């Protein structure tokens, strides 16, 4: 269909329809930017902070997409694992970079466990992985509360009263992470014309990108793509479909856990019972804004997405104040846009899938007719 004959305007139109979401965002930003009155340095600084804060988390979404399991709403599980690890390292008073490294390492076994569980459940719900992973994140949130609010301090020892609730068990609503705050970001950070660049954090993100590129070429990566394309064909080719799917979720959960530690060290403060609850939604929205779809996402989408989505996030309240005289409107607007983007992406994916199926049906029917004629 995309033959040489397609004219330039049609090509442009095709490009537009394939990249509708990023283009829409660029337009929103272009409108909001002059209204906000932010200085370039301020904006660049904010974007740099948010890029280093969020990129790793969003990278964790790529692998399940590769395995055909859609957007992993279950990445929240990794975030919970990271939070449990951080509560413990804070209580043990492990500071600075060692504290961050220890929290990352400690989050891994918890993430693996949760990932295995999530993968197992998703295997029982093939074809509706997304809604299931979405509900799993709610379900696990309950379990997380059980552990953090009732078991910590009573079964799992918590010593410090700054973390423990006065009643003797449970963790306070907010855990102070000042001791590891920006410990990673500040190593070798450089200042370029007023913009502070957290070199080491960016290097870690770059390394992760390289690992993902390499992973795609390994046997396991190839298997995952095969499973993502067609489970039955993959099974016929001797691939352990269920196992591969579980591994992809486990990897995603582990990466989300590490990403959450990076995220929280930047924030320097942790809302024990709500930090993780919306992280999945924002990461998924950012990835989709970068032009990804439910079945296809690249590293480029991650970075474009973070930049566009978070620029909108910074600008919206100010723009809301200018347009409607109310900053709250801007805040609601950005939440609306986040949900809207996910909705549009899901709808586009489903219609595409249906069209492809219908196309295949037509082809089959045509082949049948051909066969009948002979």
């Amino acid at each position, binding site marked *: 269909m995309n033959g040489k004959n397609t004219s330039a305007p049609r090509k442009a139109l095709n490009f537009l329809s394939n990249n509708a979401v990023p283009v829409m965002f660029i337009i929103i930003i272009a409108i909001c930017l002059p209204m906000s009155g932010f200085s370039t340095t301020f904006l660049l600084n904010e974007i740099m902070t948010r890029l280093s804060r969020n990129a790793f988390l969003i990278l964790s979404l790529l692998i399940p997409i590769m395995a055909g399991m859609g957007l992993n709403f279950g990445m929240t599980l990794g975030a919970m694992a990271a939070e449990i690890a951080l509560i413990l390292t804070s209580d043990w008073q492990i500071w600075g970079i060692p504290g961050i490294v220890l929290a990352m390492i400690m989050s891994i076994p918890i993430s693996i466990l949760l990932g295995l569980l999530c993968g197992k459940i998703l295997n029982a719900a093939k*074809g509706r992985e997304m809604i299931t992973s979405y509900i799993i994140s709610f379900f696990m*949130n309950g379990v997380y509360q059980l552990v953090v609010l009732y078991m910590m301090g009573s079964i799992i020892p918590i010593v410090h009263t700054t973390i423990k609730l006065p009643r003797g068990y449970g963790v306070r609503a907010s855990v102070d992470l000042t001791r590891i705050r920006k410990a990673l970001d500040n190593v070798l950070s450089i200042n370029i014309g007023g913009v502070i660049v957290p070199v080491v954090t960016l290097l870690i993100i770059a390394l992760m990108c390289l690992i993902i590129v390499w992973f795609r070429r390994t046997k396991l990566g190839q298997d995952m793509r095969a499973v993502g394309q067609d489970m039955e064909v993959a099974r016929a080719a001797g691939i352990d479909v269920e196992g591969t799917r579980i591994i992809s979720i486990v990897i995603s959960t582990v990466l989300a856990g590490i990403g959450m530690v990076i995220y929280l060290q930047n924030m320097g403060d942790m809302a024990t019972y709500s930090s993780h609850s919306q992280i999945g939604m924002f990461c998924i929205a950012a990835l989709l804004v970068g032009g990804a779809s439910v079945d296809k996402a690249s590293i480029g989408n991650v970075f474009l997405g973070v930049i566009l989505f978070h620029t909108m996030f910074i600008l919206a309240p100010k723009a809301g104040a200018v347009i409607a005289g109310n900053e709250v*409107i801007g805040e609601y607007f950005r939440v609306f846009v986040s949900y*809207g983007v996910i909705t549009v992406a899901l709808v586009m994916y489903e219609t595409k899938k249906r069209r492809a199926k219908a196309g295949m049906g037509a082809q089959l029917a045509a082949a049948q007719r051909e066969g009948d004629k002979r």
Partner: protein
Amino acid sequence: MSEYVNESNRTLSKRVIEALKEFGLPRMIIAAFLLLMFIVAPFTGANFWTQITNVINRFSWNAVLVLAMVPMVHSGCGLNFGLPVGIIAGLLGATLSIEWGFTGPLSFVMAILIATPFALLFGLAYGWLLNKIKGGEMMIATYVGFSVVSFFCMMWLVLPYRKPDMAWGFEGTGLRTTFPIDKYYGGVLSNFLRIEIGRLVIPTGALLFFALLALAIWAFLHTKTGTAMTAVGSNATFARAAGINVDKIRMLSVVMSTWLAAVGILVYEQGFGFVQLYNAPFNMALPAVSAILIGGATANKASITNVIIGTILFQGMVTMTPTVMNGLINLDISEVLRVVVSNGMILYALTRKSEVTR
């Protein structure tokens, strides 16, 4: 047919086991748990009849919202995670009815009347969308619901509501997050024909209203269109072959669900006594979904009985556990329990292989 013949040969115990299997393990656990709660409750100092009253009360608030699941499940659109779409229509009806100066029982009737065109409109758009994306309904419904709610978060601020009972001051900076409706339709159903026997209070009007709607839905499901809806839900290809316009039937079911949700939120408000705007509708779909699943419905099969049993079990659990847990061990883990049980129930339904039809 052969199964029918075998029926007589089966022993009673076998049949009981069959029935229990049909009922499902999670449901049994929840029912047993609730029974235990009722038995234990008096020992914790909670009055038995007060407890019963609470359960009946909360049942009367929520039952219509749960009923709103039924049409969409029947037509194969899955569990209606997009319940907030209808709720928003109901909230529009509520706020406009108050804004236009209706009071007392009339404001309730007017709220329903005003909500109806919105529900139809939203339902048509929502149904059109769901017809485009057959197979992916539940996830998209969730996010359509969220998008609509967050869009209306802006609208509640912007729309020119003036009534001081619900708007913020005179600057006209939009509606309050929550406002009481005693002057309007608060308790309008619950207090109608209310029966009080000692500590037991029965909100007869609200129960009758639910019964009326439930009866209407039951009757509808037995009409020609209703059976067509069930046919579409159980096998769309077969239904199409039988000459049923699948898309139209699905659309009808979505409109019905949306309207029921709109009425449902109004019934909820009249019991609760407050209107909640902004972020409140976000969290309203999951309890309704898990309630109907607890009642024995599956992703593509739901009856009025499921609605009634499910709402009683779910609301019973919600109201009983805090009192009993607090009285018993002075440890209120009821909220956590509620989250785990209700979402666990949804997960259970989503992962049952036998229920995968598409």
